[in-house]
Every structure is written in structure tokens, then in C-alpha cells.
């Protein structure tokens, strides 16, 4: 029997869209409140220093090996494609500069952020999500400890400061990998280094690092948010973790475009 509140069949898609929009707005509102609360704790200077250092180690130091690998291969593949094309058109002297520029502006911050979204964002969502579904977040609250202050702020700060550092590692190792590939394809070492010095300005590197800072904030805030609102046991934690990675990657790519419009 159809109830009074059930929409007519032709209106069902509209009802679905309406529900989705309302859900998205509610989620956006919750995320904004979480970030506002985290910002307030930061402004009040009430940082969990020890917890922030622990997270800095987990998010930053422990990510170095994977970032070195992705950065190295990103630089190598860029050099491979770029150098072959440039040699074909007779512009081989530009290889080092183009690889360095691509790494500093795009490849290093974006690849590092995507790698971190998979490793760090998933870890944050799984850890906090497990705490949420096993009442540990409630336990924090009844022990007069705000979960935003204790869980979210340290991860936000750690990710925001770790990502630029990781990106710098990717920049260096990517350029070195590019050097090896380009010289193997026939570019001379001095030519590669000279074009790198000529074309890559400190501004390009700093802009890339600022992007990495923003990506760090995105990864940690999405991971924390998905984790805090996880529900429904192991299944809920699994969905929160997957959602955190997917949402973070999408947001990184979207933000990357708009930040590029500002910086370059």
C-alpha cells in the first residue's frame, strides 16, 4: 500500500535528487563545523604537541620511502616522454628545464598528495573510524577531551606540514631520475642542469609547496571527517576508508586546477 509520504513514480528521481542534495549539504555543513572547531583550537594555541609529533612521524617520516619511489618514477617518465619529443623537434636543450618545471609545479605536489591520500588519508579514516564505532570517541568526550582537539588538530597540522617536506623529496629525486633518463637518451649532463637552472625559478618550487600544504589539509580533514562520522561496525569503517581516499583524490585534482589559475 502506498503511504501518504511516498512520492509518485514520476517524481521518484526528483525525490532522489532532493535527498542527495540535502545529504550533501548536511555533510558539507558538518565538515565546515569540524574545520571551524579545529581552527578555533589552533587559534587558542591549545595544541596537543606530543600527539602532533607522533602524527608528524607517521604521516611524514614513514611516508618518505613510498614518496621517493613515486617521485623517482614520475621524474623518469616525464624525462622519457619530454626528451624524446624535444630531441625529435631539435629542442633537446630544454629537457632539464621542462622536467624540473613539471615536477615542481605539478608532478611532485600532485603525485605526492595522491600517494599520501592512499596511505595517510586511508589510515586516518580507518583509525578514527574504528575509534568511533567502538565508542572510543565517546570515551574521549566523557573524559572531558574534545575529539577535534585531540584527534583532528594534530593530524591536520602534521599533514599540512609533512606534505611540503615530502613534496621537496619528490622534487629532488624526480629531477635526479629525469637526469639519468635524459642523459641515457642522448642529452648531455651540463645541458640538462643548465636548462634546469635557467627555467625553474624559486617561485615555481614555493608555489608547488604551498599547493602541497593545501593538499595536506585536504587529506587530513577528509580522513578525520569520514572517520568521525563512521557508523555501522567494520562495514562502516571500510566505507569511511574508501570514501576518504576517493574524496581526497577528487578534491586534490579539483583544487589543483583552481590553485593553478591563481599561481601560474
Amino acid at each position: 500500500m502506498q503511504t501518504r509520504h511516498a512520492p509518485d513514480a514520476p517524481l521518484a528521481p526528483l525525490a532522489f535528487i532532493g535527498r542527495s542534495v540535502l545529504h550533501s549539504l548536511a555533510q558539507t555543513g558538518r565538515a565546515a563545523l569540524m574545520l571551524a572547531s579545529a581552527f578555533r583550537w589552533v587559534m587558542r594555541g591549545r595544541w596537543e604537541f606530543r600527539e602532533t609529533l607522533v602524527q608528524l612521524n607517521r604521516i611524514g617520516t614513514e611516508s618518505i620511502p613510498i614518496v621517493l619511489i613515486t617521485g623517482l618514477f614520475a621524474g623518469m617518465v616525464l624525462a622519457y616522454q619530454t626528451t624524446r619529443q624535444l630531441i625529435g623537434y631539435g629542442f633537446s636543450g630544454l629537457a632539464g628545464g621542462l622536467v624540473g618545471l613539471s615536477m615542481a609545479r605539478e608532478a611532485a605536489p600532485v603525485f605526492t598528495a595522491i600517494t599520501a591520500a592512499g596511505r595517510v588519508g586511508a589510515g586516518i579514516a580507518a583509525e578514527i573510524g574504528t575509534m568511533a564505532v567502538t565508542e572510543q570517541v565517546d570515551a574521549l568526550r566523557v573524559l572531558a577531551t574534545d575529539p577535534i582537539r585531540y584527534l583532528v588538530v594534530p593530524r591536520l597540522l602534521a599533514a599540512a606540514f609533512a606534505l611540503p617536506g615530502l613534496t621537496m623529496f619528490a622534487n629532488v629525486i624526480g629531477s635526479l631520475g629525469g637526469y639519468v633518463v635524459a642523459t641515457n637518451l642522448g642529452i648531455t649532463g651540463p645541458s640538462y642542469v643548465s636548462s634546469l637552472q635557467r627555467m625553474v625559478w624559486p617561485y615555481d618550487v614555493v608555489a608547488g609547496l604551498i599547493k602541497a600544504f593545501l593538499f595536506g589539509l585536504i587529506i587530513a580533514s577528509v580522513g578525520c571527517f569520514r572517520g568521525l562520522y563512521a557508523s555501522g561496525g567494520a562495514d562502516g569503517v571500510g566505507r569511511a576508508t574508501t570514501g576518504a581516499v576517493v574524496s581526497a583524490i577528487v578534491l586534490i585534482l579539483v583544487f589543483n586546477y583552481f590553485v593553478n589559475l591563481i599561481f601560474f
Partner: protein
Amino acid sequence: MTATAPSSVLPAPSDAGGPPPADVVDVRDLWKEFGGVTVLAGVSLRVRERQIQVIMGPSGCGKSVFLKHLVGLLTPSRGEVFIFGQPLHTMDEDALDGLRMRIGVVFQSAALFDSLTVAQNVAFPLRRHRRLSDAAVAARVRELLDMVEMEGTEHLMPSALSGGMRKRVGIARALALDPPLILYDEPTSGLDPLTARTVDDLILRLRDTLGVTSVVVTHSVDSAFRLADRLAVMDAGRLAASGAPGEILTCGHPFVQRFLDTRAVGVSPR
């Protein structure tokens, strides 16, 4: 008794001689809805100092939701919650934190922090809210673990503990700040009868030795009658009956009678 309670709710016993003990918990006409579903429908309950108030009922009747309102984990859709005379339902988070330091909560799952050892779990509230030296914290942790008969487990991780051990460490953590009120959410669920008895004895000992006021939510009839100074039976978000355990046993409410028919043989009115 309470204004909105159903007819089967029994009057509280009068206290002959001396002023009546203060109400530690005073809940008035509490309603809670989740997405249009009413979970609590006008619950009123008062708990006096140094008493163990047990709230008994089947799974899903709203007991745990009720308990979460007593510590501000949930906000009422309607109604008022006073703890130590303070209106918890109107407080902001900062004021709530001040009040929460006077309330201990033992969760159904114990809710120990997975990443911390037993000692670090018990020390957590001390390190955050008391300025004590490391030695003083360690001594207090030992004292609390002795109290719950968990001495020697300081270095263990929660994952290495059995269900009963986790519950006892949860109680030790809840006691760390010497709260005058402790809330227990299904303290004996999932435990074997012997361990359940140990946890029950611990709750009774805390009342007798420290004068702690307790609110215990359980679906175990056996535990309920062993612990309760006052007993309330909840059904579908309402209190079906409330009174002394002996009064509950003789109350004629059909749901209460049906629920009590499941009780263990040998339970007698107090």
C-alpha cells in the same frame, strides 16, 4: 514519584529521620527522536546520592540512549536533565567538560583506547586533568588497578585482555578522577556468570566504600536484582515501572511481569 510516569510507577520510599539525600540525577520528561523515530518518550527519573539505580529492559528499548543523555553525549529532543542540580541540557561543551570530570562512564565495550597500554588508559584522565608527577600518576594507576583486581597488567595492550578484564580496566579508568557519579552501560553483558558476579561485586563495593552514586543499565535480571537500590523497567522508550526491587517484583504491570518471568531461579525480593 515523577509527574509523567505511567500508573504502574511506584512511589519512592520516604526517608524517616534527617533531611532526604540530594538528587544526583533528575531527568524530567525526556524525549529523544532520531529521524522521526521516537526512542525516548517522556522518561522521568530521579537518582539519589549513594544509591544504585538500575534501569532494566530488553535490547533496543532506549536504555543506552537514556544513559548517553546523562553525560551530554546526546541532547534531548525535549525535556530536562539535571546532574548535581546543574541543567546539563542547556550547557555548552566547555561547561559540559567541567561537569564530565565529576561523572565516570563505563561503556558496554569498555572503549579502552587501542593505541595505549592498560596503564596509559587508566592514567589518561589524570594526565589531562590533574597536575601530578609521573610517580604520583603511576602510584594512582597501581591503586586503581588493585581496586579492580587487575594489578600487574599495566604494560599490556587492550587487545591482550579478555572481555571481563577490559570491563574492569574501563571501571578503573572511570574511577581515576574520583567521580561521585558513575554510569554503567551493560557492565556484565557478554561476560560469563562468574566474571559478571565479580563486576557486580565491584559496583556494590564502590557504593559501600566510596559512597559512589551509580546508574546501571542492563538487560540482565539477575544483575539488576543483585545491584539495585532502586530499579526501573523500560519498555519502548518509556518507564513501565520504577521502585524498590521488591516493589517491582510484586508490581502488576504486564510487561514487567513478562520480562521478570525470564529471571534466574533463586532471585528473591529485597
